C-alpha cells in the first residue's frame, strides 16, 4: 500500500439517519489517484461527491474499506496531520472557510498549525499572494472582498501549505464566470507547473473539460472512469442527464457527420483552430 498516491479500497460510507437506518452515500468504491493527475469528479446532487472529498483527507472515515494517502491509512488519528498536510481541501462556500480577519493572517493560519518557523511562514505568504494575484489585498479583510477574490484567498491559503493533492469540492458554484475561469486557470498552473495533483469535484461538466481523467459518480458508485473525451462522447453519459460541455456536443455532432477531431482538442478555441486548419 506504499507509494505516492491516494488509494480507496472497497470503500463504503453510510450515514445514520435520525430514524436509525443507514443511507449509503458511497458503495464499494475502489479508486487509485496517482500523483500529478488532474482529475474531474462529476455527479448529480446526492451522488456521493462531497462524501468522497471528505474521505480523501480524513475528515470522515469509511464505514467499510480503507483510504490510504501515500500509504498512510486515514483511520489512524496519528496519521491525520501528515495526511491533511498532503491533501489540501477547498470548499464550496468561501465565506465559511476563511478563519482570520486579514488576508495575510488567513494564509498564515495553516502554516502556523504546521509549526513552521516564522521566516518560512513569511516567505510562503509572499509566494502564495504572488501566485494567486493577491499582492495588493495582503492587509484586506476577506469579508470585504468579492466572492471570486475570497475563493482565491482560500486557494492561496491551501497552496501555501504546499499540498501534494488538492481536493476541490464544488469550488466554482458560488462564483461569477470570470472568477470561475480565473480559478480554473490557477488550478492548471498549480497542476502543470507545481505538480500538484488536482481532484476537482463539480456538478457542472464545463468545469471539468481540462481534466486528464474524469470520474462520474452515480448513486454512490463509480459509473464511468476515463478521459473526458471518452466519457462525454459515450452513450452512457446521456442517460444521466448531467449535460455535456459545449465543446463535446460539437465534437459529437462533427464526428457523427464524418469529421474526425483529434483527441488533444479540449476547448472551443482549440476546436475552432482545428477546423480553420482543415478548411
Amino acid at each position: 500500500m506504499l507509494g505516492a498516491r491516494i488509494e480507496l479500497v472497497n470503500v463504503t460510507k453510510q450515514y445514520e439517519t435520525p430514524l436509525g437506518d443507514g443511507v449509503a452515500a458511497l458503495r464499494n468504491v475502489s479508486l487509485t489517484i496517482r500523483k500529478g493527475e488532474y482529475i474531474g469528479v462529476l455527479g448529480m446532487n446526492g451522488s456521493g461527491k462531497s462524501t468522497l472529498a471528505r474521505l480523501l483527507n480524513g475528515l470522515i472515515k469509511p464505514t467499510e474499506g480503507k483510504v490510504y494517502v501515500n500509504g498512510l491509512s486515514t483511520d489512524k488519528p496519528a496519521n491525520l496531520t501528515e495526511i491533511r498536510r498532503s491533501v489540501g481541501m477547498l470548499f464550496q462556500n468561501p465565506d465559511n472557510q476563511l478563519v482570520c480577519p486579514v488576508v495575510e493572517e488567513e494564509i498564515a493560519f495553516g502554516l502556523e498549525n504546521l509549526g513552521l518557523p516564522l521566516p518560512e511562514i513569511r516567505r510562503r505568504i509572499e509566494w502564495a499572494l504572488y501566485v494567486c494575484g493577491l499582492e495588493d489585498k495582503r492587509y484586506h479583510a476577506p469579508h470585504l472582498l468579492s466572492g471570486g477574490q475570497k475563493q482565491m484567498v482560500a486557494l492561496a491559503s491551501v497552496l501555501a501549505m504546499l499540498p501534494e493533492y488538492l481536493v476541490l469540492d464544488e469550488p466554482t458554484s458560488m462564483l461569477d464566470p470570470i472568477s470561475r475561469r480565473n480559478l480554473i486557470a490557477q488550478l492548471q498552473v498549480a497542476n502543470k507547473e507545481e505538480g500538484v495533483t488536482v481532484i476537482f469535484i463539480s456538478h457542472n461538466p464545463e468545469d471539468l473539460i481540462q481534466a486528464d481523467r474524469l470520474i462520474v459518480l452515480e448513486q454512490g458508485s463509480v459509473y464511468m472512469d476515463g478521459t473526458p473525451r471518452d466519457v462525454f462522447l459515450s452513450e452512457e453519459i446521456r442517460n444521466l442527464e448531467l449535460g455535456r460541455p459545449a465543446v463535446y456536443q460539437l465534437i459529437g455532432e462533427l464526428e457523427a457527420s464524418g469529421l474526425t477531431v483529434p483527441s488533444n482538442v479540449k476547448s472551443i478555441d482549440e476546436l475552432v483552430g482545428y477546423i480553420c486548419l482543415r478548411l
Partner: protein
Amino acid sequence: MKLGQYVHGDSVIHALDPRTKIICCTLAVVSVMISVNVYYLLVLLSLMLAVVMVSRLNLGFILKCIYRIKALLLVTLLCQGLLTHGQPVIIIGGLALTKEGLAIGAINILRLVVLFVGSLILLMTTTPIKLSTGIEALMSPLRRLNIPVQNLTTILGISFRFLPTVFEEATIVKNAQRSRGAQFDSPRIMVKIKSYAAIVIPLFNASLTRAADLGEAMDSRCYNPHPNLLRLGSLKMQGRDFTALTIAAVLFLVAVATTIYPM
C-alpha cells in the same frame, strides 16, 4: 465604515504592541472611574484626541461616532440631573433637574466620552488577531490553572471575523422575510417581536451550518490548539511600548492623587 472597525495604517500607535494598548486602555478605564476631577478628565480627553491625531484616524469620524451615542449621553445627564438632591434649576411636572445633578451628569458624560474614544482608538488601530493575541498573552498565566487560553482566544478571534458576515446574513434574511410580508415597522410590539423571531431562527440555523463548515475547513488545515506554536503576530515589546506604558502609569498615579487630595 462600521463603528470600531480596524483601519489599516502605519502610525506609531498602530505599531504598538497590543498588550501595551490593552494595558493602557485598562489603566485609562480605572483612572476615569476613580477620578472626579473635571480638569483631569479634560486633560485625559485632550490626550485621547492627540492620540487620535497621531494615529492618523479620521477625527471627523470619531466625532460622528460620539454623536451616535448621544442618546446614552443624554440619558446619563437626565438621570443624574433628576436623581441628585440639590438646588432645582428646571422643574418639569413635579420633577426637578438640580444644579448639582447636572454637574455630576456633565462629569459622567465626560467620563463616558473618554472611555468611548479610548476603546475606539484600541479597536481601530489593532487588528482583531493582534487583539486576541494580546489578550492571549496577558491571560497566559491562567494556563497554569488548566484554563484553555488558546482555545478561548481562537473563539474570540473567530467571533471578530464572523460578526460582519452574520450581520450581512441578518440583512439578507430580513429582506427575504420582509418580501414575504414580515412587518418590522409595525407599531404593534407583538407583531414586531414575531417578525424578528422570523429572522433569529433562520440566522441561528445558518450559523450552525457555518460553524460545521468552518470546523471542517480548520481541521483540513491541521488546526491544533497547541499553545507553543509560533504565530505570525508574535509579540515583542519595544522602546515605544515602555514609553506608552510609562505615560499611562503616570496618568493613573495622577488620577489616584486627584482622589486622595480632592480640590
